[in-house]
């Protein structure tokens, strides 16, 4: 079957089937709206820029920065994951009875000797509790005698202005008196 049709541009056309009528319309519309084809030089420019971008080497600064960042990240990871000493268990507020180790059942507890202990201070009634090392703290006090002291100089108190006095005589233990009742008013 052959069909004659009047085109939109006023021309008469003939088609060999019904399907060609639809196809011709579409082809007409396509021709009317077809965008301009890039020129050969434009296609060449696009191809060149694509080829350059695929073969371009990375920036050296970018490589260095990435390497440094990777190194730092590895170091941080190693520090984080390194098996450190686990935090000590603070334990209960009041210590509880511990299990006796088998070795302790037979061995005697190591007792400190006088040489192992050095007492630094005792406050309050603590001297009653100390068993070792107390000899150094409670030994008899030896007082200075009259012949052990020789006064070379003295000065009045800065605030009260009182002159310190040494009393005790020639036989008694010397005592330094700083009597504030003698202060200069």
């Amino acid at each position, binding site marked *: 079957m052959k069909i004659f049709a009047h085109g939109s541009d006023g021309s008469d056309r003939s088609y060999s089937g019904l399907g060609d009528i639809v196809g011709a319309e579409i082809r007409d519309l396509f021709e009317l709206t077809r965008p301009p084809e890039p020129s050969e030089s434009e296609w060449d420019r696009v191809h060149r820029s694509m080829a350059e971008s695929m073969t371009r080497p990375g920036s050296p600064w*970018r490589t260095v920065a990435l390497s440094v960042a990777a190194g730092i990240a590895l170091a941080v990871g190693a520090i984080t994951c390194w098996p450190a000493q686990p935090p000590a268990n603070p334990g209960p507020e009041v210590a509880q009875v511990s299990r*006796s180790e088998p070795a302790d059942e037979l061995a005697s507890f190591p007792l*400190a000797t006088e040489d192992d*202990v050095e007492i630094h201070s005792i*406050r309050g009634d603590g*001297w009653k509790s100390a*068993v*070792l090392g107390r000899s150094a703290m409670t030994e008899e006090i030896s007082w200075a005698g009259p012949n052990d002291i020789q006064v070379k100089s003295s000065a009045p108190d800065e605030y009260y202005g009182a002159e310190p006095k040494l009393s005790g005589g020639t036989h008694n233990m010397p005592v330094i008196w700083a009597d504030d009742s003698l202060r200069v008013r």
Partner: protein
Amino acid sequence: MGVCVRGAFVSFLIVLLVAAQPARRDEPRPVHVRVLVIAASTTNNKTDKRLEKFAKVFQKTDPTLVGFEVLAELDKRVKIGDTGTFALTGTDKLKVKVDRARDAKDNTMGLTVYPPGSGEISYSCTTGKYVPFVTEVTTKTGEKVLVAVMARPSENRHRK
């Protein structure tokens, strides 16, 4: 520009991570403090074999004590500068403060002991040795409660 911002952000995160790490390697390790609670009797002359040396020392201060038994062995890890509390009998507690870490020169540690009902005693002692103390505490059955305090550095569990 975007790379710079991203790099700065990553650096900030890394610094944050490093700063968040606890300074556990330089931190002094807690001290292992052990307290022996001993019951001393004036009537029962039975003595624990492990306490034979202690008995002689305690008897110098109080010859009426004839029998010595271990009531409890108390363990606690105490940080340097902290005070550990050890329950003796009933509500009576012994406090032990760790004043000083082990001195490598003479292998001693500094402690302050606060026996119940008494004042305080500050001393240094060779590590691993028990120092005996007398307390004013008695058990329900009338035995005198004595204590012995030992301190030593904590063991490194990773080096076995």
